[in-house]
């Protein structure tokens, strides 16, 4: 019987997804920006003035002695509102991303793996996807009252079909892979196959999709706020700060400029992380690492 010397593999241990990702420059810098913004959002509230405190006498004051970003039409300090507003936007962004990924993942797995469910789920998804996201969100929010929950729900619904389509396409390719067939041949139960073999392969593309969903959710929240259908002004969010400053744009552009810039920077950071993740976790590139 041929007994050749057992050869120990020499290539290094495959680093976990996170280490691969962090090596990518844009993921690192984008991630750093996000961490800073998140820190400011969480702790900012303690250092700044009370964002709700109204002093009509010092209204519409330019940035300077009345606060770093000046005051709005009710005399509230725009700087503290932008800092506290960050919390809302980040919460909406992450909540929408998490929920839409969770629901989308489940529906996508079912639609991709079980043929008979496929047509039904995908037709409903087509229906949802054909309704323009902003219209659906506006209609949902202004008709059922604008609370954080309804805003998140309204933005999640149009995002779900996109996630379902992504997961379904991944599942359709993975289930043809020989190692899935080998698992079937080894008598592994269906849900175990989905958990062990199909699900892990959807993680990388889902993470990338999650960042894009988060970015677009923050933008949608701002647009909803701007159109007057977003989060109620009692809770400052970048969207409603800008919406309230809309009429005074020519007189006091900073009320729109500062939250707009904060929003743009945050969404930019999220999208840069998304691009970085896409390149570092891209299966094609991952394959070349083999």
């Amino acid at each position: 019987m041929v007994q050749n010397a057992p050869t120990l593999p020499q290539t290094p241990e495959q680093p976990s997804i996170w280490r691969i990702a962090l090596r990518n420059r844009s993921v690192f810098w984008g991630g750093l920006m996000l961490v800073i913004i998140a820190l400011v959002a969480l702790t900012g509230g303690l250092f700044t003035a009370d964002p709700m405190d109204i002093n009509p006498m010092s209204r519409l004051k330019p940035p300077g002695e009345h606060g770093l970003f000046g005051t709005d039409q009710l005399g509230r300090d725009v700087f503290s509102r932008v800092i506290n507003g960050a919390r809302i936007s980040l919460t909406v962004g992450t909540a929408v991303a998490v929920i839409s990924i969770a629901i989308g993942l489940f529906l996508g797995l079912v639609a991709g793996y079980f043929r008979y469910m496929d047509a039904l789920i995908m037709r409903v998804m087509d229906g949802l996807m054909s309704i323009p996201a902003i219209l659906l969100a506006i209609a949902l929010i202004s008709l059922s009252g604008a609370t954080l929950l309804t805003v998140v729900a309204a933005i999640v619904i149009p995002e779900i079909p996109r996630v379902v389509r992504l997961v379904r396409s991944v599942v359709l390719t993975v289930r043809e892979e020989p190692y899935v067939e080998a698992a079937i041949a080894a008598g592994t139960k269906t849900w175990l196959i989905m958990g062990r073999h199909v699900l892990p392969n959807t993680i990388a593309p889902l993470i990338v999709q999650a960042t894009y969903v988060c970015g677009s959710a923050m933008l949608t929240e701002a647009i909803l706020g701007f159109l007057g259908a977003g989060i109620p002004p009692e809770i400052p969010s970048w969207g409603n700060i800008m919406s309230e400053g809309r009429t005074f744009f020519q007189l006091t552009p900073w009320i729109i400029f500062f939250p707009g810039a904060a929003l743009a920077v945050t969404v930019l950071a999220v999208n840069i992380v998304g691009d970085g993740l896409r390149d570092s976790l891209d299966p094609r590139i991952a394959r070349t690492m083999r």
Partner: protein
Amino acid sequence: MTPILDIENLSVSLPKGADRPFAIQDITFSVNAGEIVCVVGESGSGKSVTSFTVMGLHDKRALTPVAGEIRLEGKNILGASAAEIRRLRGEKMAMIFQEPMTALNPVAPVGQQIGEMLEIHTNFGAAKRKAKVLQAMRDVHLPDPEKMYHSFPHQLSGGQRQRIVIAMSLVLEPVLLIADEPTTALDVTTQAQILALIKELQTRRGMGVLFITHDFGVVADIADRVVVMQNGQIVEQGPVAQVLGNPTHPYTKMLINAVPSMTPPSRAPVAGPVALSAANLNKQYGSLGLLGGGRVVNAANDVNFQVRRGETLGIVGESGSGKSTVARCVMRLIDPTSGEVLIGDTNIATIAESQLRQHRRDIQIVFQDPYRSLNPRRTVGQSITEGPVNFGVSPAEALERARRLMSIVGLAPEALDRFPHQFSGGQRQRICIARALAMEPMVLIADEAVSALDVSVQAQVLDLLEDVKEKFDLAMLFITHDLRVAAQICDRIMVMQKGIVVESGPTAQVFANPQHPYTRALLSAAPGHSTFDSKGGASAGQAAPL
């Protein structure tokens, strides 16, 4: 007279972080007019890098020629300007590639793609161009060039597409033709026709051909001179008779010996109990089509066979012959349309998934592509123990069994907690075999299990399969398109064509005097048939020294 192509100690460096500094290192050889030079070597030997560097098609960001010269008709083209190189491509030198299915632009008619060559290099009028193209198509013996001129690549067969690529590259009658494994992806009968075509065109036009391959059979059939490469260096070169007749370098010897001989050893018939049998097994694909327009494809048609324990039944045939379909029907990865599949005495052809599950352990499979048959995100140990744990074996005991099997298949048991990407192709196939054996099956199916491996690695895996078959008294169903491999490992053999079993019987008898014309065509089309096998198989039965 000056050689058409003269390469003098050419070196091309790899980017840092690669497993060796140079893709190819001081390569020197030449190609004269009217001569076919075969460059042979295993994957990663640098044979393709050489051909791509000559054409200037290498990946400029990764590979950089650092030394040496490439003289085309005496003129060094290594440092030539991009425009100059572009002019030469097509006029003076041309190249054809391995994958005919993807070598042509899918959205443009083939006639136009050949015509493009003329558009670039000549100022012929449209009519003249079309005439030239049709002539080129006739030169490569394509049926009905007028009609094919307007058809798209996806409407042609692999062989036809390769002929179009050849016609395209030779339309301007270049002096040098570089062919990078042009027939590897083709069926053996088509491969024989293309090799004959290249030989005919080469002699008629007296051009030099640089032919890259890993298959010594092809070298034997077509080469005038041979250059053997290993890890980016030339280990041996010379006239084909001398290199194949008495190779000097041990690596060349090893490669030649590793080529399984076409003459099967005589094997005693196996008497063990029947483990697996199929009775008039059928599988039809195809849509019924609402308006009756549906096409019905008979993937497998009335297939009958038996495999006894300790016996290897080979199923041979070209791609599309239905051999894989039979294997997948037997494994119930796809449901047969009709017929019976008996494992031991239970018919598993049509039973529901729930009862089928406990029978699944009796029959296991090893797939072709080592890179996709192991889940990249799970360790080797987890993949092997998954099966037994499904059937109630305790994780600890399953791990113990896995460790035992790893040493049986020749791998270090400690490697269980590593990930698939850390192993070579050959090592992964061994892991797949271990995974199959972990289920203690009665039947093992090898579906093209060695076709993706290099010849040397192929030999080791075949030996391993032979060993485990004896050790565990398995019934083995071996599916392959490579007659040489079938000759060496199968006790009995079944030849399939378009879903129908055209001939079956003991391997030696089928190889000695094939009854069915298709079997005869297959045997004669096998490359290197005359050179290797007339001497009674240089390597019959010998253990390949390592």
